[in-house]
């Protein structure tokens, strides 16, 4: 994975010192909370319901074991012994003391991490496919261009005070695991007819109160022109994006109000200007340097089958089940990709304790070439595990309650922080995710239901991605009591779609029953092997609605 050179180290260290000065000025009272706010936001520090919250960037979701150990250490020393992995492939700490945050950041800098641009109206941490470099049929490892984008966008002098925050996601695979069509810019690495690698660029996707699927503005941007193209999009947005109403300030609104065709023209005109200067063409030697960091690790040549693995599966039904749900085929024979569920039955989605993080770091070091990933569905991944080692890995995960075999199933829900932490919330999200998980605790029932993505947001800001849940749940406020609205048929992959609202919202007491009704309706309607989303797309909203609101 990418390692800092002296420039990277120096800039992060300077930023920590800069923030230390700002915190000192705040603590001494020289800076008001108002003046301090944009500065802390630039450094990932939010003010939440009960305390400051710190969001740490995990660029494109890739971590080393050393880094994860540091995150565990920080959970223990600066927080209450846990961290929360988010849908942005980041980690959040809910309880750090402001005065200690500069020290915390200095510790992060030791392991090449930071909280820069994890909040504020700037280009945020770039996200990507959690299986990058491990999955078969990838056109190119998306982390290479993600890293180049990370550097280009870091402390960008022109784009640090945009109309609104800006999120870029990249996938190098036809199956999109990075929800690229729901980002301000989504990039798909493609190959053209001449066999050259380039980028398809989608612009103007987003969730929040007005969700949009991104429009494909460019079919093929050649490799050396991507930064120029991105800078063109950013400049058009910075010049024309709305600043009079923060709800209309995202680029999705600009694209919608301007129209796709006109937007494309504006971007291309700006691109022509920037491209002519050649100043954003990254030297090949630099691309090569960065590429080398993402070269495949030293895989052994192994047979496709492992006798030890087959025997372990035959001997241990629990292990076999976990392999079916949480283990994915690897590009390299004899290896596999392991998903670690952070969704234990009845647990808090995305939370991990310091001890769990250390255990996972140890596994990554011993078995996965020192590498780990964070997924936008709030789970972790060990990307390169030998089939021969799967059982040993599984046993360790079981010890730490990290082996829940529920990836992609109904209990693998995404939930935003909701009313337990967030001052914008209408309703609780985490307790609802826990209740649903408990209601469907029976794993056999979950397997029978099959893939079903539940996504829960505590308010219309949609941090929990409810618009793109197969079943989406949105907390709404009715005269001070918590209500939940349901939508169906959303999806965040290459066939991205926004869910349809079923109708009247449900109370805290009836929402879990309503989910169960929907699940039963699906089970009754499905054709053999049809997933929930496929059945929904075939039959539409009506049969679900009828059952849901039947007297």
């Amino acid at each position: 994975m990418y390692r800092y050179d002296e420039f990277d180290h120096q800039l992060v260290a300077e930023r920590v010192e800069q923030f230390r000065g700002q915190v000192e000025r705040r603590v001494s009272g020289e800076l008001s909370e108002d003046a301090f706010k944009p500065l802390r936001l630039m450094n990932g520090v939010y003010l939440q319901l009960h305390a400051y919250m710190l969001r740490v960037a995990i660029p494109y979701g890739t971590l080393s074991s050393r880094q994860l150990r540091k995150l565990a250490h920080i959970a223990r020393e600066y927080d209450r012994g846990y961290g929360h992995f988010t849908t942005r492939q980041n980690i959040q700490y809910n309880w750090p003391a402001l005065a200690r945050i500069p020290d915390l950041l200095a510790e992060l800098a030791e392991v090449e991490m930071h909280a820069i641009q994890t909040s504020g109206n700037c280009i945020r941490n770039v996200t990507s496919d959690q299986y990058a470099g491990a999955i078969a049929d990838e056109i190119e490892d998306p982390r290479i261009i993600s890293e180049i984008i990370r550097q280009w966008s870091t402390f960008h002098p022109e784009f640090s005070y945009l109309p609104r925050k800006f999120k870029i996601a990249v996938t190098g695979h036809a199956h999109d695991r990075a929800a690229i069509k729901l980002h301000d810019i989504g990039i798909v690495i493609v190959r053209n007819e001449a066999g050259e690698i380039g980028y398809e660029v989608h612009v103007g996707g987003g969730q929040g109160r007005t969700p949009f699927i991104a429009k494909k503005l460019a079919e093929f941007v050649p490799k050396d022109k991507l930064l120029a193209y991105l800078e063109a999009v950013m400049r058009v947005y910075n010049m024309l994006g709305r600043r009079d109403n923060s709800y209309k300030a995202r680029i999705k609104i600009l694209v919608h109000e301007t129209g796709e065709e006109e937007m494309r023209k504006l971007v291309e005109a700006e691109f022509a200007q920037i491209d002519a200067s050649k100043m954003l063409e990254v030297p090949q030697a630099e691309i090569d340097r960065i590429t080398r960091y993402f070269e495949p690790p030293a895989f052994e040549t192994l047979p496709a089958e492992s006798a030890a693995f087959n025997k372990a599966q035959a001997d241990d039904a629990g292990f076999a089940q976990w392999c079916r749900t949480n283990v994915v085929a690897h590009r390299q024979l004899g290896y596999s990709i392991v998903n670690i569920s952070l969704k234990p039955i009845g647990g808090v989605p995305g939370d991990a304790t310091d001890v769990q993080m250390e255990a996972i770091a140890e596994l990554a070091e011993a078995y996965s070439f020192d590498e780990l990933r964070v997924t936008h569905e709030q789970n972790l991944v060990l990307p390169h595990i030998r089939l021969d080692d799967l059982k040993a890995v599984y046993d360790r995960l079981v010890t730490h309650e990290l082996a829940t075999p529920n990836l992609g199933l109904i209990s693998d829900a995404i939930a935003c922080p909701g009313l337990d932490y967030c001052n914008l919330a209408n309703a609780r999200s985490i307790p609802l995710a826990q209740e649903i998980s408990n209601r469907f605790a029976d794993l056999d029932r979950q397997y029978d239901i099959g893939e079903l993505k539940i996504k829960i947001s505590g308010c219309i800001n949609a941090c929990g991605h409810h618009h793109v849940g197969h079943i989406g749940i949105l907390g709404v406020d009715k005269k001070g009591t918590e209500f939940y609205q349901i939508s169906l048929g959303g999806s965040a992959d290459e066939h991205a779609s926004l869910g349809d609202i079923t109708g009247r919202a449900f109370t805290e007491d009836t929402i879990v029953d309503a989910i169960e009704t929907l699940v039963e309706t699906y089970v009754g309607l499905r054709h053999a092997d049809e997933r929930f989303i496929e059945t929904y797309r075939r039959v539409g909203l009506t049969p679900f609605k009828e059952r849901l609101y039947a007297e």
Partner: protein
Amino acid sequence: MPNSKKLIIDGAESSNIWHFVDDETPLAEAPAIISLARLQDEGAELVAAGKKLGVILRAGEKQGEDVHALKPFLDNLAVVAIEFPVYRNGRGYSTARILREQMGFRGEIRAVGEVLFDQWQFMHRCGINAFEVDADVSLEAFNEAMDELSAAYQPAADPQRGILWRRHN
């Protein structure tokens, strides 16, 4: 307002000979910064009278004024002031870059409005060379802020080369 602000040009404190003149006030001899509307109305006349001009691009309620409208006047403009109504309105950064890099403007680009400590360095990188800051800002603090980040990853309107380029000479 005039007394609560000071002007720093190219890293040195400067007495401000350019003053804002509103659209109703007749132009005297002193160098004046006028509105875009006035420039468009009276610009040709003023140029014919041999005047060097300054203009301010306002941020506007909904949409800031368009820098491209300055094109016909560029050769006769000495100062372009860009209004930053609040620190978080960063449209002026793009305005400045377009003016410097695409329109080739060599005169003074002045940031006015809410122009705070943590913005100066980025503004400077975008081609802004004059800063109207609060009067209590010391030159020392200003220059310190200008050096807070010792390098940059990406190219902009200043001569600094991006790290992505510098690594390979």
